[in-house]
């Protein structure tokens, strides 16, 4: 059986199909994250109003700082990524800003719920959502934001991250280790996903090429038949 080498046009077409599909995915996930960020913003406000609506002094009450933080801080965090998702979907900067904002939203939600361990699951859920891009570099951006948050707060405000004022020096590595554990599998999943997407694009280009060849053969045959009958 002879295997004919693929013409350069097939490889070029596969690249073209892959680029179009990839951009469509990036834009779709950008828009999904824009919706998610708004939902998270609303959830943060709801959590603040439910858990700590007021700060008290005897009979007097004032709006709790957590409510202001949820409204203004949460709004500020989601403003740029939402604008980018609307006006520049699919742009490389858009998804990296979204990745950073998603992790900042995690940090905000953790704070609004009083540092609950359960809210820390949001970090790992967010990494899984970011893997939908099939672009492993956004996971690195997200991880760097988490690492920077832990590193800086570990130096200047350790009790807010670790619950104690003088954590062991390796505490940072323990937290980062779990994120790296999650990242390792998600990055592998992204690489596999991209390979499969490229293979699918190549198959589509080949099918298009074969269909084109068959259409040319069919046209030539019809012409030959027409000449014979004339």
């Amino acid at each position: 059986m002879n295997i004919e080498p693929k013409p350069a046009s097939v490889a070029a077409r596969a690249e073209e199909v892959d680029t179009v599909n990839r951009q469509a995915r990036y834009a779709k996930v950008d828009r999904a994250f824009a919706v998610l960020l708004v939902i998270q913003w609303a959830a943060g406000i709801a959590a603040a109003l439910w858990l700590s609506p007021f700060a008290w002094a005897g009979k007097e009450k004032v709006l709790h700082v957590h409510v202001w933080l949820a409204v203004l801080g949460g709004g500020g965090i989601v403003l740029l990524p939402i604008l980018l998702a609307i006006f520049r979907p699919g742009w490389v900067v858009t998804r990296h800003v979204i990745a950073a904002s998603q992790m900042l939203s995690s940090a905000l939600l953790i704070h609004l719920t009083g540092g609950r361990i359960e809210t820390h699951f949001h970090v790992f859920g967010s990494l899984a959502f970011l893997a939908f891009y099939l672009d492993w570099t956004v996971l690195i951006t997200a991880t760097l934001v988490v690492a920077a948050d832990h590193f800086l707060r570990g130096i200047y405000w350790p009790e807010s991250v670790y619950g104690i004022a003088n954590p062991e020096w390796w505490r940072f590595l323990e937290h980062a280790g779990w994120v790296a554990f999650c990242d390792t599998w998600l990055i592998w999943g992204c690489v596999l996903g991209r390979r499969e997407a490229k293979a699918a694009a190549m198959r589509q280009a080949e099918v298009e090429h074969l269909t084109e060849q068959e259409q040319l053969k069919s046209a030539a045959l019809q012409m030959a038949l027409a000449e014979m009958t004339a």
Partner: protein
Amino acid sequence: MKRPILIAAFTLAGAVWVVTVAAAVRSIRAFESTPGRAAAAPERWPSSSAIARQPGTWTLVMLVHPHCSCSRASVAELAAIVEKAPRNVRTYVLAYRPHEFGEAWSRSDVWTAARRIPRVQVLTDVDAREAKRFGAFTSGQTFLFDPDGNRRYSGGVTLLRGHAGLNSGRAEVIRLVNGGKGPGAHPVFGCAIVSKEAP
């Protein structure tokens, strides 16, 4: 949208983004790390207190504002202390209530959480009379008195405002109530039990 307008919008949004994150971290740090007013605590059990101290036993007292969301963490820490303390320690949580409000006013989730702790009596502190006798100003203020009625601890039992978790205040109370030496103290984090204008 025209390119210059888009660039200006993104630049502005980027600046808002950076400023917001910095301002949020700064404000939350200031809020959570600033302790409340420390107690002017008496050296011995206040004789004017309506609580009948049982001589010969340790007594632990926590004063809370029932609507102070930060005090959920203080009550959670109290539960951890009670678990590690000898069973005969008498523990009281005094929940503030202004006289013009009914009993239902003080029945908050902080109250419910305190009621769930074994061997803890939750009492209402009308108009913060007991808080004044103990010299307490901030919700979460905790006192430990030894079997002779001497104050051995005065302070909070959380590391930050509204943050439960291991901290030196909690550890100190557990150490003292189990026979540790010396007096103990720790900053207290929470809402003010009475307003500044109150007498």
